């Protein structure tokens, strides 16, 4: 290149870059599109549009929920703070128009006008194929189906073109609710089968990239890691036609930018901002802020009961007395959580979960207990947490570390990367850690099966095993299946009391789902999966 040309072109570019264009002014068509479109911003997006896929992540569940239908869904009720909240006990038909529950089976009549996005009618064949798929593909969907005793393809029977019967493997209270979670969605079987291959008989590769359902929305464009665009399905038969025509869901990794987008009015909804931002947004009053406790979810401090000195219940109790509960609520969560500690001493145990323990911060008592346990000078251990949720976990652990030091327990904080966290939990070698667990099905026994049962599932992170506990849990499950309320209540109280007495895990609080939206957006509903339901949202 000639130097003269070079310099000329350089100065030309300098002039061009000096012309800062103002942001584009909306043409009227664009303004129209904007008023009918909901712009959602969140940190991460789906990796698969089908919940039956291999390793579909949580944002992928949101797509499935809005783009596929299930046979039944839940009614709404008024929840905490007047927020519409799904009603655990009341089902409403979605693809089914009628549901008859028999002694050992349930029969669904399908809506005659229900159509898939490509116009094909939804038939009993599709329902059976989809449920067969859910129990056969393995991984998370199959295990979720199993939680409701839905395990074999023979359980799903085609009665006629519009009727499906589901046979119960055994009496289980969780079978019906399990049919209303995200997993048993109905897939367009003909379309998917056409795109399946021998290696992939369930067509998972096809549904990973596009939605093949009958739901209220369909994905029209998906750029992984960048955006998902969904258009309303005007033919939707599952319920009243949604108000929002188009949903654009953009991934904005920076929390600060998500907040700026909300405050400038460019984004309509964001639901994963740090607690501090939510509190500030709430105080500023410019936005609609909704905070609802996670259903059946608790953040806790766990102790591995197989590792000394936590095998000693006195030590565990001492730790429970030394946790700075209130400080965590104030300094880490900015009050955006429901305390699970400090119940009045004379309060009777309820038939409910989660419920608060009676523990409060009492350093003197903790010291005494520790001395009684034979560790008057304390001991050393590590305190682990998942870096994937460092925003809450890190300050929480620092506070716990500080407080435990007062009773002589010296802790080293061990930060575990998100990718590694589950592996470490699975090994069950962490002595002391914080974690959160929440169950989709909102039943106390469901939580306890995962977290306290001697079968030692991955979420029984404490390796807690107790014969009495297992008996209570099994008793409650059986009593619920046959509707024996008195026995059920005794057993639930029994396992809650035992969990608090043996205290292998110390409940801290019930986290909140925090959603921030513009003032003109309404209709937010809380669902057990904690993702957004676009079908009820309204943008004025």
């Amino acid at each position, binding site marked *: 290149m000639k130097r003269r040309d070079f310099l000329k072109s350089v100065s030309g570019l300098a002039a061009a870059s000096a012309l800062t264009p103002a942001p584009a002014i909306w043409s009227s068509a664009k303004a129209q599109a904007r008023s009918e479109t909901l*712009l959602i911003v969140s940190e991460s997006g789906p990796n698969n549009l089908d919940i039956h896929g291999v390793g579909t992540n949580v944002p992928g569940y949101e797509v499935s929920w809005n783009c596929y239908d299930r046979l039944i869904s839940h009614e709404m009720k008024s929840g905490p703070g007047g927020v519409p909240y799904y009603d655990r006990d009341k089902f409403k038909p979605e693809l089914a128009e009628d549901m008859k529950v028999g002694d050992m089976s349930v029969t669904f009549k399908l809506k005659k006008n229900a159509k898939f996005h490509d116009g094909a009618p939804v038939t009993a064949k599709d329902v059976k194929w989809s449920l067969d798929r859910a129990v056969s593909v393995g*991984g998370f969907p199959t295990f979720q189906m199993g939680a409701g005793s839905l395990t074999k393809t023979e359980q799903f029977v085609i009665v006629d073109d519009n009727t499906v019967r589901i046979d119960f493997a055994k009496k289980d209270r969780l079978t019906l609710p399990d049919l209303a979670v995200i997993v048993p969605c109905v897939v367009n079987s003909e379309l998917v089968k056409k795109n399946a291959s021998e290696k992939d008989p369930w067509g998972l590769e096809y549904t990973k990239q596009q939605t093949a359902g009958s739901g209220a929305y369909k994905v029209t464009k998906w750029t992984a*890691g960048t955006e998902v665009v969904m258009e309303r399905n005007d033919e939707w038969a599952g319920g009243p036609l949604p108000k929002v025509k188009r949903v654009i869901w*953009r991934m904005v990794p*920076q929390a600060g*930018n998500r907040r*700026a987008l909300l405050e400038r009015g460019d984004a309509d909804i964001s639901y994963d901002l740090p607690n501090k931002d939510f509190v500030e947004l709430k105080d500023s009053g410019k936005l609609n802020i909704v905070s609802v406790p996670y259903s059946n979810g608790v953040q806790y401090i766990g102790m591995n009961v197989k590792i000394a000195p936590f095998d000693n219940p006195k030590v565990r109790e001492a730790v429970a007395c030394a946790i700075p509960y209130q400080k965590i609520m104030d300094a880490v969560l900015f009050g955006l959580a429901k305390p699970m500690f400090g119940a009045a001493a004379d309060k009777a145990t309820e038939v409910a979960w989660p419920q608060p323990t009676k523990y409060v911060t009492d350093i003197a008592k903790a010291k005494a207990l520790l001395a009684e346990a034979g560790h008057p000078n304390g001991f050393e251990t590590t305190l682990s947490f998942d870096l994937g949720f460092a925003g809450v976990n890190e300050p929480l652990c620092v506070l716990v570390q500080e407080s435990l030091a007062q009773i002589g327990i010296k802790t080293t904080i061990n930060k575990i990367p998100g990718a590694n966290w*589950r592996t470490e939990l699975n090994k069950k070698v962490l002595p002391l850690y914080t974690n959160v667990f929440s169950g989709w099905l909102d039943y106390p026994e469901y939580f306890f099966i995962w977290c306290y049962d001697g079968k030692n599932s*991955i979420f029984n992170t404490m390796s807690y095993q107790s014969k009495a506990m297992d008996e209570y849990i099994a008793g409650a499950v059986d009593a619920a299946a046959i509707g024996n309320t008195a026995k059920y209540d005794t057993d639930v109280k029994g396992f809650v009391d035992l969990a608090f007495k043996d205290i292998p895990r110390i409940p801290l609080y019930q986290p909140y789902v925090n959603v921030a939206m513009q003032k003109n957006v309404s209709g937010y509903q809380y669902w057990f999966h904690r993702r957004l339901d676009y079908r009820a949202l309204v943008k004025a």
Partner: protein
Amino acid sequence: MLTMIGKRLMFAIPSLIGVVIVTFLLTRALPGDPAAYFAGPAASKEAIEQIRKKLGFDKPLIEQFFRYTNDLAHGDFGTSLTTGQPVATEIRNRLPASAELTLLGLIVSVTIAIPLGVLAATRPGSWIDHLCRVTTTAGVSLPVFFTGLVLVYLFYFRLGWSPAPLGRLDVFYSAPTHVTGFYLIDTLIARDLEAFRSALSQLILPAATLAIFSLAPIARMTRASMLAVLASDFVRTARASGLSPSTVIVTYAFRNAMLPVITTLSMVFSFLLGANVLVEKVFAWPGIGSYAVEALISSDFAPVQGFVLTMAVMYVLLNLFIDILYGVIDPRVRLEG
């Protein structure tokens, strides 16, 4: 010339093979179990084992490696687990986004840095020299994500001059038909001026962020190299012969001072391309840097390997290009040398 290029490319093959082996082993040595990560929050041990089998991670390492190289030979980089897309497609889609941003940032930076460096060198100790020193020090000492956030706060949040930091185009524009992958060029080809405007306004803040950061090495290198050349004998001779100062500086000194600047430029470019992860994060830019980092965080092997391999190939090509450019600027430089 062509045989030279061919030879250079041949030399690159062993290093590429090395890169393939090292990245494969390194990603396998990472802590974290992708099967457990992707089995989801409610997975049992059996579910994790099933996922592991599906992903092929239950096979011995050597078998995994041969499968991987075999796929590579067929142009298949594997599939990302986090985004669910084939890695080759993703890189093809994302590389232009990063390249467009980096190139624009670099052009802005060069436009400012080279004149600044030249002026600083010709008037050492003057106010312009101090200005050069202050800007470069400030530019290099401000972390990119900080500059990015400050720019967003100021120009988007406070002043409202800049559009929302939501990636390459405003939400309500659709992307132009893919020709080069550079939106500025593609929108012009599609004669969609409104989209061009939108793409340009989205680019300004992130490009400025990168420019501020890359000013320092270029300006400092220009200044140092100009100073050295200006002190050399042939410049003295030129001056003594009564040539005008501008002829001396522009014709004789500047051209000779360009070589080290070009070297720095190539380094800055390749560095920026890989390292603008933070800028991409701040501006929700769908580039390859953020793609690779996200993959790394979730122990997603395929994209990491694909990213490293792509970067290695780009390095090789870039170095070759720079070497050829040397020959054009200074005929004394030979490729063999």
